């Protein structure tokens, strides 16, 4: 199924003609796609294809020194894209759409406890103190599978494992009641068990809370396992998109085919066989 123009009007995230350039060099060239709530949209592509850049730009945080054009509509509202307007965007950033990142241990401030991270995040979005309570932090930690959240809160990031921190990131997003999650290589550095656990968690959240997810990864098995739709990126351009089954079973673009081939060969699966 290809998203139609009418569907794009209702889509939660709507990216139109996004261009990112660094001087003469085009990093992302005219990217357009949509993603909806309650669905997982996968984005694949090799390193340097502009996936993470797109993700950061959607959050309104493109790296300094890049020029950005195009629109990002969130729930029908245009997000400012220039970094100097970042302050304007912060109302929806984090509150409606949250990002979880790879290598989580480097994403937490090493000298602050998990509690501090919760408190400051909620404080940034909820003015009232009533909502910013220990109760709330605990419930979101429980939701991501921590059975004893009180033991987690006073910990420092370096005292926890990557998988745990990844789940804390998700818990931080949940505590804000976000509608949409950008998962940028969120499971790349994790061991298989933690990866599985995080992916299962994401899947259940999509199902239970009608969360929308944009899942960026270069691991095709993760896409196959979790995504509903898939976007294939190459050198800043979208080369193929569609329902995950459709794309994986009948790839059209040569790049998609080579990606899949490489993946199957690595896992010793004969491509022809699996397609048929």
């Amino acid at each position, binding site marked *: 199924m290809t998203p139609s123009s009418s569907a794009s009007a209702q889509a939660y995230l709507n990216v139109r003609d996004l261009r990112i350039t660094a001087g003469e060099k085009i990093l992302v060239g005219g990217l357009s796609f949509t993603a909806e709530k309650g669905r997982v949209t996968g984005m694949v592509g090799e390193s340097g294809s502009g996936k993470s850049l797109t993700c950061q730009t959607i959050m309104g*945080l493109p790296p300094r020194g890049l020029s950005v054009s195009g629109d990002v509509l969130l729930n029908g509202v245009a997000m400012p894209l220039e970094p100097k307007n970042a302050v304007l965007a*912060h109302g929806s950033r984090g509150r409606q759409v949250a990002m979880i*990142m790879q290598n989580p241990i480097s994403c937490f*401030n*090493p000298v602050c406890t998990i509690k501090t991270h919760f408190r*400051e*995040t909620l404080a*940034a979005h909820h003015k009232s103190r009533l909502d910013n309570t220990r109760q709330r932090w605990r419930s979101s930690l429980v939701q991501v599978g921590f059975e004893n959240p009180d033991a987690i809160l006073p910990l420092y990031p370096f*005292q926890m494992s990557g998988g745990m921190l990844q789940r804390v990131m998700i818990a931080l997003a949940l505590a804000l009641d976000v509608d949409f999650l950008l998962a940028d290589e969120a499971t790349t550095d994790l061991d298989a068990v933690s990866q599985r656990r995080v992916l299962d968690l994401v899947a259940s959240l999509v199902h239970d809370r009608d969360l929308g997810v944009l899942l960026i990864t270069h691991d095709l098995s993760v896409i196959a396992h979790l995504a509903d739709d898939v976007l294939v990126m190459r050198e800043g351009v979208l080369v193929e998109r569609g329902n995950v089954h459709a794309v994986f079973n009948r790839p059209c673009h040569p790049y998609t085919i080579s990606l899949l081939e490489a993946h199957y060969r690595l896992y010793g699966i004969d491509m022809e066989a699996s397609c048929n």
Partner: protein
Amino acid sequence: MLRYILKRLAMLAPILLTVSLVVFGILRLGEGDPAMSYLRMSNIPPTDQALAVARAELGLDRPLHEQYLDWLGCAVQGDFGRSYVTKNPVLEEIFYYLPNTLILAGASLLFTLVLSVPLGMVSALKKDQLPDHLTRGLSFFGVSMPNFWFGFILVWVFSIQLGWLPPMGKGGPAHMVMPVLTMSLMSLCINTRLIRANMLDNMHARYVLYARARGLPESVVVGRHVMTNSLIPVITAVGMHVGELFGGAVIAESIFAWPGVGRYAVSAIYNRDFPVMQCFILVMTTIFVTMNLIVDICYAWLDPRIRYEGGGQ
């Protein structure tokens, strides 16, 4: 945390013991003859007989290890002997002048921190803009400026030419301006550069990106995340600055006739007043070591990584 502090405190004693051994070793193995200085300062003609008497009196004729243990025993009780020149107990003299030096050093350290933090921050936040260029240029000049020359230029400009500041001595806060500037210039510039580099490093850290992605206001992002992580390493640098400042104090006190322990020590060196030199270096080193200990404890206190790793070992 308590364990960490105790562990560090326990290390203090052996460090100071070794320090005393080194000081004693340098003193006894050097060429100078303490008996000679003692006699000259006592206005006793240094005949061979008088020298022998003085050596016996000062215990210089006994085996080295005995001399050391004796000396250490006295030193532990705060008895560093009497100055050859003034005949007063050395520790008393040193402690008399010490507060003046500590005032200067403290004020310089404070000045260094108070000024370098905003300068470093502004420089990093306005990277490659005018304030940054100015700060970087100034700090580069400052790092290359010999403090004994700088002090004299200050006197020349502000006392002789303009007549704004008192050129020497101790008195009100105005008397402190030039010595403090002279002493802190180097530390200030190093610190500014350090903070700027740390800030820039940290601004590209992933946790800053994540903090922004969580929608934290910029004030919180910079004020809490970038700042804390940039400033905590500065605490370590404070330990180093103290060492530099002590060196600077000797020079500043000489230029500005500040009645501190550094100037006293220089005159003691001219006179070869060995007990004073000995006590001076021991006291300064003890302060330096203690400062570093405090710095380390502060560092551990502020940076949980050290606290948890260091304490567990």
